[in-house]
């Protein structure tokens, strides 16, 4: 296993910089400046006093870049590793930029599907369920659950990238994130079902907690959730659907 050349101090700087990778997000270059800013401390150390090489490397990284923000960590680590090799003359100086541009598309797709598409809905549903059951623990459950996945990818992604270089691609593949995304979605679906049942029952008036009313409320909530889910699938927007449902109900509440 290759040992990274950069110091612990530079590692921490790059790690912290990865949290700001989208600070200057633009439609043209997306995270291009953010990536260059995040990798800059490592390049400063790798190229040291050689200003010409250092500026050349900084400029090469100042280019279009777009991936999922958390998946930038393994890319950053691997790019630093390849940059070290380029410094030693073991590969062409364009190799780090080429690596970046090859992996950013797939990593963007994997990260979007896993973090935005699976982890965040799971954490949101768990957080809302916790809020219904235990009030202020809701936001804490949400943040804790979400950030376990998030921070692990930020830290170990960067570390593994530094250690493995372009071998990080195989490492990320071995994590099998798409399959985990599907599993997490099933878990989210199960939690959402519980949330629907609990919320339907908790909204019943105190006098109406009989078995028949409870069962009807749960069944009605399942049917309504499936119906509105179908409307979203058919292209309805949140604004449109919320308005269609809310306006008549609010008017009814005001008038009657």
């Amino acid at each position, binding site marked *: 296993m290759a040992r990274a050349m950069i110091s612990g101090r530079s590692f921490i700087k790059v790690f912290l910089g990865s*949290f700001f990778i*989208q*600070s*200057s997000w*633009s*439609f*043209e*270059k997306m995270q291009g*400046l953010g990536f*260059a*800013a995040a990798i*800059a401390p490592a*390049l*400063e150390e790798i190229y040291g006093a050689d200003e010409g090489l250092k500026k050349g490397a*900084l400029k090469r990284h*100042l280019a279009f870049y*777009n991936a999922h*923000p958390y998946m930038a960590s393994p890319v950053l680590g691997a790019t630093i590793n390849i940059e070290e090799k380029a410094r030693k003359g073991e590969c062409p100086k364009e190799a780090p930029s080429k690596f970046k541009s090859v992996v950013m598309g797939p990593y963007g797709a994997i990260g979007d599907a896993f973090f*935005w*598409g*699976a982890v965040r809905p799971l954490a*949101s549903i768990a*957080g809302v369920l916790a*809020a219904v059951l235990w*009030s*202020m623990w*809701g*936001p804490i459950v*949400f*943040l804790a659950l*979400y950030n376990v996945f*998030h921070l692990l990818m930020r830290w170990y992604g960067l570390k593994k990238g530094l250690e493995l270089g372009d071998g990080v691609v195989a490492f990320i593949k071995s994590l099998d994130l798409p399959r985990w995304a*599907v599993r997490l979605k099933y878990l*989210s*679906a*199960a939690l959402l*079902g*519980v*949330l629907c049942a609990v*919320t339907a029952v908790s*909204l019943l008036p105190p006098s109406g907690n*009989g078995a028949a009313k*409870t*069962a009807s409320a*749960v*069944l009605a909530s*399942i049917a309504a*959730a*499936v119906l*509105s889910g179908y409307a*979203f*699938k058919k292209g309805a927007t*949140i604004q449109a659907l*919320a308005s269609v*449902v*809310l306006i008549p*109900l*609010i008017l009814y*509440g*005001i008038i009657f």
Partner: protein
Amino acid sequence: MPVNAALTGAILVSVAGGVLSLDRTAAFQVMVSRPLVTAPVIGYLLGHPLWGLLAGAVLEILLIGDLPVGRYVPVHETSLSALVTGLVVAALEGTGASEGYAGLKSEMTVLPLAILIALPAGRVFQKADIMARKMNARLFDTASVSVDGGGGAALIRNNLKGAVLFLIANTVALLLTAVPLMLGAGYFFTGFELKPFTAAFAGLLLVGAGAAAWSITTGRSAYVFGASAAAGGALLTWLAL
């Protein structure tokens, strides 16, 4: 809510909402910008964390499936949560609702209307966000020039300027919407009496459940959802017997 208090509240909502919005794109992404966290924080700053929590939970479920993929800029959930919480607090204080848990029943009546009023303002937040992203393109050009003189430090400086642009854009957009709407909420919600009515709130939750169900649809997840809700419902029905 008196005018001065509403104005102070609106400024507080705007500044806190602007700072929390940074987490959405510009920095960290630890998700303190999600409604479930933003709304209780804003509620806490306005003296009613529980009211904020209820608003946040509903908005969280409602906006669960709106994802920032590629060039798509989704609904600005942070600013929307901050504004809705501000509106709810202004309305409930205006109507003299009870504090804490007792006030949640009144909030169920007020919240759907607050969301309905705030949703169009979401366009302002979205436009401000897009404007900041367009202005960021200039920073890239500036950084390209300044890297010769300043090296890595110049890149980091220019990158962080982008975060400042996001902060300013989000705070100003919130100020533009929160000040008139929160000042108006005091009058609007006290002008006529909303009867205790939770059907709109229930409708809102069901739309949210649909949004959540749609966002996690995969394979046979609909069966898992149905089975889990039925099992949960059966257990609760048994408990109610």
